[in-house]
């Protein structure tokens, strides 16, 4: 169990800056998920911690020791790769014991560590097999087992579940959570899947374009995103964004105009925009339902998921600028079954307190009041 300190770390390939001046403190025993779109630098950051990439500037400390210039094996970290990276010519035992063998541990100690890890991961029956004889899930368990035997201060996971099918992925997610509790180890986990981030993390690090956008607990990030990128990245279906104008601003309220004919007042809680500023409002799909603001919606698509219903439709009187629906449309999530038909016009309401307001630069100026 160890802390990780990343201080002003930068890495570039030629003129391309993969990560830019990252500062991040990870506490012992934490499960931190780094998430972001492809190419955001999350994997690069993980690999600099592992020592697979050198840094151009900054320092990396693991367990209080500066490991910036140490070999990967001397950093006290272990890594699990997306494609498992099992040694194909070694048995499961050989794979799991390889690190200890390289560290010149006694055979008895290696055997002990391997069987213990195998017990934790329920793969005792497969120890004599070659990787090619294993299923994807089993391979990933062996890869995790390989990390466990080395008793690292920090576990690094590089999209470990991406090669598994959906059902297995859900199961492994739970299992990794259990493993984290059981080992109490510090884990850093990279994924592009926000569901994994939300479900597994103690803290989420959202990255974009080589920089950290926001760090915080999953709900903190979900409820109080610092900017439009974070707001849009977490949640599925994603937040509906609608371009608007702040037409009237006073000490208590902001008047939000979606169009000439459609405006409403919001009790403000952040840094107010100036009057006549272009703003964007964000409404999560599940925020529709009861409320003081109403509009009509022409239903385009209905997805009945059993315990919930997703409705995609074209609002009357305004249009979205970004959503998981088609151009200009919005997505509404009803947490129950609902009889709606395609082509039908329905009334939709939402609470003025349930919207986020972002300024033209994407910075959050008002957070939705989730307790309303």
């Amino acid at each position, binding site marked *: 169990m160890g802390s990780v300190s990343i201080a002003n770390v930068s890495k570039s390939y030629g003129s391309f800056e993969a990560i830019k001046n990252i500062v991040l403190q990870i506490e012992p025993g934490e499960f931190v998920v780094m998430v972001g779109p492809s190419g955001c630098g999350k994997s690069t950051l993980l690999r600099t911690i592992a020592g*697979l990439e050198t840094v151009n500037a900054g320092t990396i400390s693991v367990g209080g020791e500066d490991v910036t210039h140490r070999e990967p*094996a001397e950093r006290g970290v272990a890594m699990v*790769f997306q494609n498992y990276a099992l040694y194909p*010519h070694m048995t499961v035992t050989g794979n799991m014991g390889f690190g200890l063998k*390289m560290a010149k541990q006694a055979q008895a100690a290696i055997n002990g560590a391997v069987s213990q890890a195998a017990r934790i991961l329920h793969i005792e029956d497969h120890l004599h097999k070659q990787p090619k004889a294993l299923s994807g899930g089993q391979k990933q368990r062996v890869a995790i087992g390989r990390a466990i035997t080395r008793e690292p201060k920090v576990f690094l996971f590089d999209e470990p579940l991406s090669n598994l099918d959906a059902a297995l992925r859900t199961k492994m997610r739970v299992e990794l959570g259990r493993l984290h509790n059981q080992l109490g180890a510090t884990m850093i986990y990279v994924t592009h899947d926000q569901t994994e981030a939300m479900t597994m993390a103690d803290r989420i690090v959202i990255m974009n374009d080589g920089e950290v956008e926001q760090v915080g607990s999953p709900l903190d990030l979900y409820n109080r995103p610092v900017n439009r990128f974070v707001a849009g990245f977490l949640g599925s279906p994603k937040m509906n964004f609608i371009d608007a104008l702040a037409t009237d601003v006073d000490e208590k309220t902001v008047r939000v105009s979606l169009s000439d004919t459609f405006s409403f007042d919001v009790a403000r809680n952040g840094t107010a925009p100036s009057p006549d500023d272009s703003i964007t409002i964000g409404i999560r799909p599940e925020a529709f339902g009861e409320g003081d603001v109403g509009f009509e919606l022409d239903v385009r698509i209905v997805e009945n998921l059993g315990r919930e219903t997703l409705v995609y439709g074209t609002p009357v009187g305004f249009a979205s600028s970004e959503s998981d629906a088609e151009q200009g449309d919005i997505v509404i999530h009803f947490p129950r079954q609902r009889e709606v038909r395609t082509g039908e016009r329905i009334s939709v309401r939402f609470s003025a307190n349930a919207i986020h307001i972002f300024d033209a630069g994407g910075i959050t100026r008002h957070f939705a009041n989730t307790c309303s």
Partner: protein
Amino acid sequence: MTARSEQTTVSSGTLTYAAMLAPALILMSVFVFVPVVLVLYGSLFQFSLTDRQWDFAGFGNYARAFSDPIFWVALRNNLIIVIGSIVLQVGFGTILAAMLDRGITVGGTLMRTIIFAPMVISSVAVGLIWLIILDPNVGPMNVLVSAIGIAPPRLGWLGDPAFSIWVVLGVAAWQYTGFMMVLILAGLQAVPKELYQAAALDGATGLRAFRYITLPAIRNILIVAVLITTVGGFKVFDLIFVMTKGGPANATQVLGTYIYLQAFTLGNSGYANAISAVLLVIAVALGWLQLRTSRKA
């Protein structure tokens, strides 16, 4: 009714198989089986190319081979070339491939092309080029070696029986190392980079990564490379024929050139057949080994 139609299908199927196999079988017979049988048959006789009379000699030609010192020199030279080529061609090929795979990032393709290039030149041309390079009077090799302060062999690179087989071995290595390199490089590049990264985290870098990750991964390719080199080493002919004709005084004689010498220069066709038969046994043994290893892999 059903049984009848089934029978028809079977016999027409057999006929089709036979028809499709026939061309290959006929070609194999004419170019492989019949010559092999003729060689074995001819090895029991004493005759020359121009003889109409074949004298039965039993296993006399074989007895003669085993008591012929030059036969043993030739066999020893084949073994030198086989083992030396494995060390040089496969060994250096592996080292070069590893360097190109991981070390050299700039100009890798150019390097690869240059190293591979000798492979596409015919052995005859390679031999002639090296004859010029190694010429003791005007060749650049003597100049080069003298320049770094080493006295070149007084009798010439190819004139000194103590040197010549090793020089030929070196030229063969020059020609084929590039091929081995490309073969092995293909194997190296098929090894996922993550394996090396996982190994680095496990504490295996550099030579240890080579020992534990690279070598096992290219094991099958190395086996193929060794077999190709071994077969090539036993059937070597053209390079030696061009460079030394087996000389000086049989110092570079190999089975291939010795068979040629006996059959076409000395007119001992029966004896040449017997040596060919010995080479055939070696070739069959190697073929069997290759089949066995490739099945296992």
